[in-house]
């Protein structure tokens, strides 16, 4: 690779400082598209009620038995069905947007919960070491040995399928990877000079962990969490698909897929669009995770910096 030095005066300033993550994002077209997609899905989900009130979106609960299973671009008395209608004549696009509330909501809350569990246990294990560390890591190993999917199914079935139970079970089965990574990073960070310095200045353990170690974990965790978000979305969709997750009349993308399954031969859109929604959302978070990883890679950053400043 030829080293493109843009001009002499930038040589003294490191490119890392000159280029914010945002500048790098603007030049990575795929990551930018992924971000725009996620933000627009989230916005549509948040303002779904307003969209219905303003007449831009058809009411997702309005049934029209004369217009059942109609293909995309079908026009009924309710309005234009951009993505067609479902088995009860409800607008598919509206149901997808309202389904996004639950699918994304479950994903976000689950990830927050499992991160809290994983990061807390990982920090304690990595910082304290010794018996505490042994105990927590054994716990991780033991839970990794459980047949996760079967156990999740049984517990949800016993506790009764509901959004709360779904979130709890998913959060309790997905914290281990986060705990492992947090512990490993904390372990190496707690032997660094700056932690040593903070300690000799008399900082409390809590202060060291919260202000010196945790901030250095954020980039690693951000990558892991966006990958995990994709996995949680897929698990939720899978459980809802089996009838063990979201229950009607609520709509989640996985449930919509399950409902559309019976009409697979006659109404392809019922299966195609909810699946596409799940796939594109997961794809976007995975792409952003990949982008976050490369941004944290100094070699990549330098190369991008050189490319951007050359323009």
């Amino acid at each position, binding site marked *: 690779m030829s080293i493109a030095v843009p001009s002499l005066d930038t040589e003294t300033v490191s490119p890392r400082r000159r280029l914010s993550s945002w500048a790098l994002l603007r030049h990575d077209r795929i990551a930018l598209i992924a971000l725009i997609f996620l933000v627009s899905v989230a916005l549509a989900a948040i303002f779904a009620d307003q969209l219905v009130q303003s007449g831009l979106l058809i009411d997702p609960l309005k049934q029209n038995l004369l217009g059942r299973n109609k293909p995309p671009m079908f026009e009924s008395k309710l309005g234009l069905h951009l993505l067609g209608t479902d088995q009860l004549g409800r607008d598919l696009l509206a149901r997808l947007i309202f389904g996004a509330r639950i699918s994304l909501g479950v994903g976000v809350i689950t990830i927050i919960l499992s991160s809290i569990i994983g990061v807390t246990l990982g920090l304690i294990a990595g910082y304290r070491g010794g018996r505490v560390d042994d105990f927590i*890591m*054994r716990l*991780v*190993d*033991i839970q990794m*040995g*459980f*047949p*996760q*999917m*079967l*156990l999740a*199914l*049984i*517990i949800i*079935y*016993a*506790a009764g399928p509901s959004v709360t139970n779904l979130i709890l079970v998913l959060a309790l089965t997905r914290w281990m990877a986060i705990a*492992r990574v947090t512990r*490993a990073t904390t372990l190496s960070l707690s032997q660094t000079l700056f932690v040593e310095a903070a300690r000799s200045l008399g900082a409390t353990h809590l202060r060291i962990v919260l202000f010196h170690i945790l901030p250095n974990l954020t980039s690693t965790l951000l990558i892991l969490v966006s990958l995990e978000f*994709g996995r949680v979305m*897929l698990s939720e*969709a*899978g459980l809802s*698909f*089996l009838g063990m997750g979201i229950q009607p009349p609520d709509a989640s993308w*996985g449930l919509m*897929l399950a409902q559309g*399954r019976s009409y*697979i*031969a006659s109404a*392809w859109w019922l*299966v*195609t669009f*909810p*699946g596409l929604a*799940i*796939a*594109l959302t*997961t*794809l976007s978070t*995975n*792409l952003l995770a*990949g982008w976050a990883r490369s941004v944290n890679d100094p070699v990549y950053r330098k190369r991008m910096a050189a490319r951007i400043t050359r323009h």
Partner: protein
Amino acid sequence: MNRRQSGHREETLAHYVLRRLIQSLFVLAGLTIVVFFVTRQIGDVARLMLPIDATEQQYLEMRQMLGINDPLIMQFGRYLLDLARGDFGISLWQNVPAMGLVLSRFPATALLAFSTLIFSLAIALPVGIGAALRPGSIFDRIATVISIFGLSVPTFWLALLLITVFSVQLGWFKTSGYGSAQYLILPMLAISAQSIGRLAQVVKTSMLDVLNAQYLVTARSKGLFESVILIRHGLRNALLPIVTIVGDEIIGLLNGSVVIEVIFGWPGIGKLTIDAIERRDFAVIQASVIFVALLVIVVNLIVDLIYAWLDPRIRYS
């Protein structure tokens, strides 16, 4: 990620394996307790088995006969005594030993898991190695796209799309059932997407790590053939993380293909468990969870042994 990091004290392999086995006993014990008490909360099997107009008398007799009238703790004690004799109980619905039922479904699950694994490896290994050898090339980009798409597509959605295209439209494969390759190919393809995505990524990164290692520079400076360098010095060392992820894949395939088994009517353990949950067939649920947990333990043990065989440092540490 590294499975060796969990044991951070220096220890011999035998010691390590022994510790893992003892730990596995705890896993099994914990699972047995959790699954026993959770399954009892699922619902009342007696009501489900009787016709809707059964009298209260019949209902109580039924409960007595099924042995679910006693306090839970007594039922649990009886269950443990039976377990100690290798008896996993009787399927309430089919009146055959529960473990026998699980074992009879194992070949189907194993067939699906291993054909998926072999198919995924056949694609992920060349793609991952190729991408690592030529970073930044078109090949590398294709590999990235394949793995990121594979990881993002919901398995059951892919399954439904495959059914629509290849069974409904083209009529090439069967939509559901078990038997010849005509039944196997679609479920295998559907599950492979995720596996290929994960495997290709790990193969690529572990190959990249190895290719930048000092000992390859040494091997090159000795004037060895490039192919010898790659296979004897490169691949062997890259295999360590790959073995770990393959083990994880097998475990995932053995207990994660529930949805696919349901969609394709594949008579494996996942389908059996789902059916058992719906019928509150306690013994079968317990037997299948314990069986899958045992499989997980065995696979992990094999992975550990392969690990030690590949990396002498572990054996003699």
